[in-house]
């Protein structure tokens, strides 16, 4: 039976990502607080585990490289290597090389260029003493070490000669085990080579010991063999003293030093993951989600049909089934939820590197890392966040000098936060930098014809819309990171496709906050169904505040336009019929849905409210200009399709 690496490829991938994540996380901690023994221990352990996994999979080049890293880390742990910025850079480079090597494990022989360079850096950092150690480790051929002059095997007792198998692993330890077993039978009076030397052997050995014992030769042989990896054992109980030829052992150091690392780190690893979990194939979760979606729809039909039949027993059973389905749906949704730190995890490293690249000093804070999102949503949100973070670092936060001149602390503060807001999650990227230059954006927007020449100033929403135009960029020079005007546009689109939207708040001189609002879960959404004309539409409840009847008292006219007077507020009023351009005559007995987006509210007039329903959201690829009003479609209980209104888009016209 052999291990087939391919069976474990997926497991290897996910596990190794976790180890690499731990390495980066702890290197960052180490960089910030120089003497952090816990972080150091954690990095060491992660590199060590990663090495073991690579070796098991047959990725020997990577495993060897990891071993070099481990050795250096061990020296740092033992205080033999000083903690300097060069060391940190070398370690970060090594971490990157390890990560990069995973990308191309099809070439298992491969030492990537990144690895070679990183290795050179490690050696450089390790300095002269270490290089000579490395050299010393690579003795050519075998250095023979002679044992003591007097033959220890002379004397009373049983002579036991042992030869280890040629493929013995950790032969020194095997020999130690054999000696220990022998000791159980009596007293080991002498050994050749000496026990200390034998214990450190790195190649299979032939050794002998003189044993004072009453045990039979068979028992002795059995004991020695039970230590494992014994090729040959010879027990000489003849009692003659024998001159044996001087034993020599060959010590060939293979670059492996017995690690005297402390055996256990008392440090507690940060509890970043739950202690009990199972690994599930991602596609299984997707399948479950689809199935429950279909089941929810079918339930709706069954409920309708059974209502029509009016059989009490049937109704009872339907109620129960309905409850069970609701519970099942909740469980499946929950099982798809993952905490955002799984994606946020890699950002501190990213921020550090990006900040260094443009010479800025950035304090990065993550809040709400345990907030959960549907996993496919979380997968998608990563890239937009990277854009926003880079924007903040590149354009938002000023250089330390500029900040000092402005009376701000030299280090900029960048906060990434996640928080729940009913059935949505708000993810905010907030910096205390220079804020968006409104005048500049306005000028550019006017020049590009996006904004009317007569406009005096842009509010936050208009500002965002301008910036989010494809190709819009006020950056004078395109930096390596961003400024191509691609970032915000892409973010905007991606978030909308996910069924959410983006908001921006910016104050010049103080900073900018970008808020992404995304539904907690993607596929099944609670919606309000409304009919206008002969079409039905779904309004996600996350954007519905309340409903009321269209009555003359509530609807008034202001400057020729209908408005909704709701308690103390005057809200703009839209007619869904007009919005979707259905034409035809408005009906009587219409209703109004108060919709909201962020802090803004509007009234939406519909012909009839049908009810609330769970709908399965089917996304479509909307062409950029068309279908801006709709974020997806769904199949209703009776099998007819309905479009899902993108409520956010209804606010843009105002």
């Amino acid at each position, binding site marked *: 039976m052999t291990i087939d690496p391919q069976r474990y490829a997926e497991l290897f991938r996910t596990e190794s990502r976790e180890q690499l994540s731990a390495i980066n996380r702890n290197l960052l901690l180490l960089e910030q607080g120089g003497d952090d023994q816990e972080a150091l221990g954690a990095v060491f352990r992660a590199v060590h585990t990663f090495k*073991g996994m690579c070796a098991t999979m047959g990725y020997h080049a990577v495993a060897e490289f990891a071993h070099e890293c481990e050795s250096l880390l061990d020296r740092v742990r033992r205080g033999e290597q000083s903690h300097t910025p060069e060391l940190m850079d070398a370690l970060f480079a090594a971490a990157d090389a390890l990560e990069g090597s995973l990308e191309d494990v099809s070439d298992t022989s491969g030492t990537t260029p990144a690895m070679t360079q990183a290795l050179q850096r490690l050696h450089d950092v390790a300095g002269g003493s270490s290089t000579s150690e490395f050299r010393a480790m690579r003795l050519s051929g075998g250095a023979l070490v002679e044992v003591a002059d007097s033959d220890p095997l002379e004397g009373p007792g049983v002579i036991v000669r042992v030869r280890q198998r040629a493929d013995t692993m950790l032969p020194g330890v095997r020999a130690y085990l054999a000696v220990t077993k022998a000791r159980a039978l009596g007293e080991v009076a002498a050994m050749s080579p000496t026990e200390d030397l034998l214990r450190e052997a790195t190649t299979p050995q032939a050794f002998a010991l003189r044993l004072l014992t009453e045990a039979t030769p068979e028992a002795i042989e059995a004991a020695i063999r039970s230590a494992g990896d014994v090729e040959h054992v010879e027990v000489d109980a003849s009692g003659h003293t024998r001159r044996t030829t001087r034993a020599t052992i060959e010590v060939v150091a293979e670059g492996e030093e017995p*690690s005297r690392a402390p055996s256990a780190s008392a440090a507690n690893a940060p509890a970043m993951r739950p202690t009990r979990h199972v690994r599930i194939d991602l596609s299984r979760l997707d399948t479950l989600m689809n199935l429950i979606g279909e089941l929810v729809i079918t339930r709706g039909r069954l409920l309708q049909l059974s209502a029509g039949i009016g059989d009490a027993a049937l109704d009872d059973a339907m109620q129960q089934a309905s409850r069970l389905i609701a519970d099942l749906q909740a469980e499946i949704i929950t099982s798809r939820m993952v905490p955002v730190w799984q994606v946020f995890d890699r950002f501190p490293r990213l921020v550090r590197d990006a900040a260094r690249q443009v010479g800025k000093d950035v304090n990065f804070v993550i809040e709400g890392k345990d907030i959960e999102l549907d996993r496919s949503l979380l997968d998608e949100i990563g890239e937009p966040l990277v854009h926003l973070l880079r924007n903040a670092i590149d354009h938002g936060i000023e250089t330390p000098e500029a900040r000092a001149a402005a009376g701000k602390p030299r280090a900029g503060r960048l906060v990434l936060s996640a928080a729940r807001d009913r059935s949505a999650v708000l993810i905010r990227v907030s910096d205390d930098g220079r804020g968006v230059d409104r005048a500049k954006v306005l000028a550019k927007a006017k020049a590009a014809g996006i904004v009317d020449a007569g406009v005096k100033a842009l509010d936050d929403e208009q500002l965002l819309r301008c910036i989010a135009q494809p190709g819009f960029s006020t950056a004078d020079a395109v930096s390596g990171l961003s400024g191509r005007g691609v970032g915000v546009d892409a973010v905007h689109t991606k978030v909308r496709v996910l069924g959410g939207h983006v908001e921006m708040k910016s104050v010049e001189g103080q900073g900018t906050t970008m808020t992404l609002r995304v539904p907690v879960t993607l596929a099944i959404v609670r919606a309000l169904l409304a009919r206008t004309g002969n079409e039905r539409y779904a309004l996600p409840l996350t954007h519905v505040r309340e409903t009321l009847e269209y009555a003359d008292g509530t609807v008034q006219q202001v400057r020729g336009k209908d408005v909704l007077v709701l308690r103390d507020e005057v809200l703009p009023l839209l007619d869904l019929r007009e919005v979707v351009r259905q034409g035809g005559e408005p009906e009587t007995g219409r209703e109004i849905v108060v919709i909201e987006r962020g802090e803004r509210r509007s009234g939406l007039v519909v012909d009839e409210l049908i009810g609330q329903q769970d709908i399965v959201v089917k996304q479509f690829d909307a062409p950029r200009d068309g279908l801006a009003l709709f974020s997806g479609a769904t199949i209703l209980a009776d099998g007819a399709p309905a479009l899902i209104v993108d409520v956010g888009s209804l606010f843009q016209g105002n």
Partner: protein
Amino acid sequence: MAPTVLICDDAIFMRTMVGDILQQAGFEIVGEAETGAQAVEKYKQLKPDLVTMDIVMPDMGGIDAVRAITKFDPDAKVVMCSAMGQQALVVEAIQAGAKDFVVKPFQPSRVLEAVQRVLG
């Protein structure tokens, strides 16, 4: 009745590999542990016939775990799982009570040999 084994390693990947080898050889995996502390706790709970123990683990390493387990049960049969280049540590583990060891990357035949030696 199948012999029982407790597998201790902080990497799921490694636990899975060892587990598969032992399962194919007819063992029943009755528990897994990610830290030394968990290993000791589970040993006391489950009293497995065999334990495989990684050396490097957070929250009490393998060697301390072996020591604690052997103190609790002098007959405990613990096989250390070590990586290349850890001779001194494995020696320490044996001194702490481990009965045998295997080296990563695992060769199934060696794992089974070690297990057979230990269980007799």
